[in-house]
């Protein structure tokens, strides 16, 4: 015999009328026990719940005669809705303001919820770990995603806790089907990949990876290569970076990847093929693969600590290039948030700072809206003071008054939640998804979270924002209210403080977003340092391709210059290390054909560019940029010599600095340009006549397909290489502007609500003033005197804090920042003052238009 859950018993006790509590409870429990035997625990509990609810009617029937609670709650709802309808403007403002903030809160919370539950669709998600290598680099512990190749098989053999161990290796390959050739990232993996991770399958079986020669492809790849055709059983030709060519049969097609996957396969091959490419280094501890995942049974990952420590010793003994100091198991749910600290991580996600940052802003907006509401609620309550006094005189306890206000607040927050959900659904969620560039579904990770979240919002907005008016006003003595000796509302310090705080938040966010936007705009318009217009770069794979394409390019009338390069500025930047005495200088180097620097219009400061037809002389020359010469400490670099790439070279030219990557991502690095005698160019760089770049691109593609049918055609428009970075900047601008706009709307709404109420209350006073001869200027002065200090104080506090804060974070976002522009502050000031001014003056105008005879004659 088992008793039902305690909470249900409590509910039952609550639902039964007091006079009958014993026998009804007895009946219900007896019934429960019977059902328990007949229908099982779950069903019995459910039925018990319905019993409880069915008894509620009796409870209401019996208690309504003896206690007024239920009647009074009905009365509260009635008077509350009347009070709300009486001031439709202020109620609408409260509801709209709250809804706006709630909409933002929902969107940001869903974003956080989504980010925190990445990869959660894998069934073993909580027992899956990536084994990452700890490596000491320059006395600093760094996490590396790749792990020694034999690790997973050793773990599987030595530790019974390990259920699955998956080796993964990413490689580049040229993939061909029919005429479609692209360069792709392919993934080699153990067959257990399909069991450790459950990426949904559309066609084929989960065991497809067990057979050599099979390939599994994602739904995207299926459309890319096969279009409408069914890819199952088709043959794809792969050429790997190591040069080997092989044909694979499509044995499985994945379904669309779940939106919350932080990584997933696009082309999946059995790992044996990777060992073929690597000359069977399967048991070589000095060799690494991209990632190793293990799935444990329920046991603690610390069970593996000991064996992993011994593996680290074995690894070091293998004397490879990279020595591992130890291993760390990172749980799959945490992997995406830590991807930023793992070198070459296979999973990608936001760091936790970013994940929590958005809800933080959402909460801030919600708090602003709550302040609004508290302000408005306090001032509306002043109109109801007499009602409260009468209630108290008639015998209402203080609790009753508190309930009255709480019910009203809960009503408002309920409306706001509905409106907020609608706003979120129609505006914020689609907008945010578009900005973030990923489709974030409007859903919570579990129903419980949704319930907690909405309950939290409901209580926060309803009780927290309603508590102050409820507890404060309920304290008043009826006698003080009736006598009119109670001074309250106009000179209320509390609401002034709230308004100041709110305006402070608004100032901070507006100034912040303006500084941010200003910086972002500044970055967008920065000079790249060379001329990227009308430049087309084409990747070539060997000398023959280069020569044939060059021939074609020179015969094209629209091509004004054609040069070659090994590595290419902005597209393919390669670092080497230059040894200068004790110093090691990390340098970018490009081996280029004469004319390359002229073609890109890299500005020359001193000396000369490389000269044509003097290959012997030029192979012993080099051109450096200013950053390099500064780093070397040269006053006049021309004529200096340096051994680079095994050749003694003389510096013949000095270029100005220019940007090889997007401004925020890296500083300007030292650079070396050489012109070797026997070059192996892998980029053909063309300058075309203005507007003809696309046409030239088409012609080159045609030729490329004829001379290299097995290779993908990769081209880069030089002026578009930073586009992705620019898009990021645009997204940030849009986000900041949205936040600023919402916060300014909220503060305007707050001010408007408070003003309209307070000014209306003083209509009579204005009427008397006018009747006694006051001019409109005088009335404006009276009102301004009340609100100007608030705006001034919040501005004086807000601006320095915002400036300090944003300047601090700005440096981490852009490596080049602009000094604070006084114009920015002025603009922020203008935006705020004008929007607040419009709000205030719309009300003041009403006050000045007051007709004394209208407001004075009636009560």
């Amino acid at each position, binding site marked *: 015999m088992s008793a039902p859950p305690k909470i249900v018993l409590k509910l039952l006790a609550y639902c039964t009328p007091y006079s009958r509590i014993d026998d009804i*409870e*007895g009946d219900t429990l*007896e019934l429960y026990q019977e059902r328990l035997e007949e229908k099982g625990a779950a069903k019995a509990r459910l039925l018990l719940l319905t019993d409880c609810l069915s008894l509620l*009617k009796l409870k209401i029937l019996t208690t309504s005669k003896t206690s007024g609670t239920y009647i009074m709650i009905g009365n509260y709802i009635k008077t509350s809705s009347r009070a709300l309808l009486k001031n439709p403007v202020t109620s609408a403002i409260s509801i709209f303001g709250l809804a706006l903030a709630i909409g933002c809160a929902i969107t940001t919370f869903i974003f956080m919820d989504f980010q925190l539950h990445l990869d959660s669709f894998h069934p073993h998600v909580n027992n899956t770990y990536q084994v990452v290598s700890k490596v000491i680099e320059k006395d600093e512990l760094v996490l590396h995603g790749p792990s020694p190749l034999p690790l997973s098989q050793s773990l599987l053999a030595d530790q019974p806790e390990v259920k699955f161990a998956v080796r993964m290796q990413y490689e580049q390959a040229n993939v061909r089907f029919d005429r479609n050739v692209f360069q792709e990232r392919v993934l080699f993996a153990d067959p257990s990949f399909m069991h450790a991770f459950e990426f949904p399958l559309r066609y084929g079986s989960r065991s497809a990876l067990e057979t050599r020669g099979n390939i599994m492809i994602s739904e995207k790849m299926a459309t890319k290569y096969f279009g409408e055709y069914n890819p199952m059983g088709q043959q794809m030709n792969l050429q790997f970076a190591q040069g080997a060519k092989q044909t694979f049969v499509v044995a499985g097609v994945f379904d669309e990847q779940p939106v919350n996957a932080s990584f997933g396969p696009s082309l999946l091959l059995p790992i044996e093929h990777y060992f073929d490419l690597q000359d069977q280094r399967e048991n070589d501890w000095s060799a690494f693969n991209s990632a190793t995942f293990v799935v444990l049974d329920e046991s603690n990952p610390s069970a593996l600590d000991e064996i992993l420590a011994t593996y680290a010793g074995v690894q070091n003994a293998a004397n490879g290039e990279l020595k591992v100091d130890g291993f760390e198991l990172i749980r799959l749910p945490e992997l995406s948030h830590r991807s930023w600290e793992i070198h070459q991580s296979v999973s990608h996600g936001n760091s936790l700072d970013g994940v929590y940052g958005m809800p933080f802003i959402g909460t801030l907006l919600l708090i602003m809206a709550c302040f609004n509401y508290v302000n408005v609620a306090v001032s509306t309550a002043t109109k109801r003071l007499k009602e409260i006094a009468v209630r108290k005189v008639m015998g209402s306890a203080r609790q009753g008054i508190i309930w009255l206000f709480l019910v009203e607040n809960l009503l408002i927050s309920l409306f706001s939640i509905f409106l907020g959900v609608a706003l979120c659904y129609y505006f914020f969620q689609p907008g945010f998804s578009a900005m973030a560039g990923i489709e974030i579904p409007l859903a919570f990770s579990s129903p419980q979270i949704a319930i907690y979240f909405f309950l939290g919002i409901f209580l926060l907005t309803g009780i927290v924002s309603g508590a102050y008016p409820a507890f404060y006003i309920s304290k008043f003595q009826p006698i003080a209210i009736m006598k009119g000796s109670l001074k309250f509302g106009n000179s209320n310090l509390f609401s002034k403080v709230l308004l100041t705080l709110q305006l402070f938040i608004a100032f901070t966010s507006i100034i912040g977003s303006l500084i941010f936007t200003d910086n972002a705009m500044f970055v967008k318009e920065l000079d790249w340092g060379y001329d990227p217009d009308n430049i087309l770069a084409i990747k070539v794979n060997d000398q023959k391709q280069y020569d044939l394409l060059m021939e074609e390019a020179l015969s094209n009338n629209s091509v004004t210059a054609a040069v070659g390069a090994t590595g290419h500025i902005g597209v393919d930047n390669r670092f080497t290390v230059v040894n200068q005495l004790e110093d090691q200088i990390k340098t970018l180097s490009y081996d280029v054909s004469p004319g390359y620097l002229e073609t890109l219009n890299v500005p020359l400061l001193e000396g000369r560019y490389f000269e044509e037809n003097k290959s012997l002389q030029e192979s012993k020359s080099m051109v450096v940029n200013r950053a390099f010469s500064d780093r070397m400490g040269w006053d006049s670099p021309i004529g200096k010599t340096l051994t680079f790439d095994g050749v003694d070279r003389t510096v013949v030219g000095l270029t100005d600095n220019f940007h090889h990557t997007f401004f925020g991502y890296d500083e300007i690095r030292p650079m070396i340009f050489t012109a070797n005698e026997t070059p192996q160019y892998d980029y053909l760089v063309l300058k075309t006549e203005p507007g003809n770049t696309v046409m030239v691109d088409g012609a080159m593609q045609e030729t490329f397909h004829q001379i290299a049918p097995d290779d993908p055609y990769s081209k880069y428009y030089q002026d578009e290489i930073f586009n992705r970075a620019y898009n990021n900047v645009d997204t940030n601008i849009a986000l900041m502007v949205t936040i600023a706009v919402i916060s300014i709307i909220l503060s305007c709404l707050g001010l408007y609500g408070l003003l309209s109420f307070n000014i209306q209350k003083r209509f009579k006073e204005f009427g008397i003033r006018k009747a006694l001869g006051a001019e409109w200027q005088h009335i404006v002065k009276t009102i301004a005197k009340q609100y100007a200090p608030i705006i001034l104080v919040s501005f004086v506090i807000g601006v320095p804090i915002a400036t300090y804060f944003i300047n601090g974070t700005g440096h981490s976002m852009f490596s080049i920042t602009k000094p604070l522009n006084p114009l920015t502050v002025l603009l922020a000031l203008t935006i705020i003052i004008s929007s607040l001014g419009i709000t205030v003056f719309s009300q003041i105008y009403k006050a000045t238009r007051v007709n004394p005879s209208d407001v004075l004659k009636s009560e």
Partner: protein
Amino acid sequence: MSKNQLGEFEEIVMLTIGVLNDNAYGLAIKKEIEERTSRSVSMGALHTALYRLEDKGFLTSELGEATKVRGGKPKRFFKVTIFGQKNLQQAMEDRQQLWKDIPSGVFELFPSSK
């Protein structure tokens, strides 16, 4: 006399209490009704009816012994009062009168009822 009017469900409850005689407590009544009329009776509906009937004076009740299966709670046994019995009788007679006054042949299913 609308206050004394019996509802159909109330009538069934009172009759069932009569049938059960000494064992007429909440759950037993519920089961008996469910068995005889093949309708399902919710706990709330039954107890509401019992409460109302007692309030009107048609029923009396007293607490019985407590058992372990009921979580140590006593049973409340119901009895139909004389006043209640009178009302039941009144209700029955009203109906019988109605049956009698139906002209013969109107109800095809009961041609001979008279």
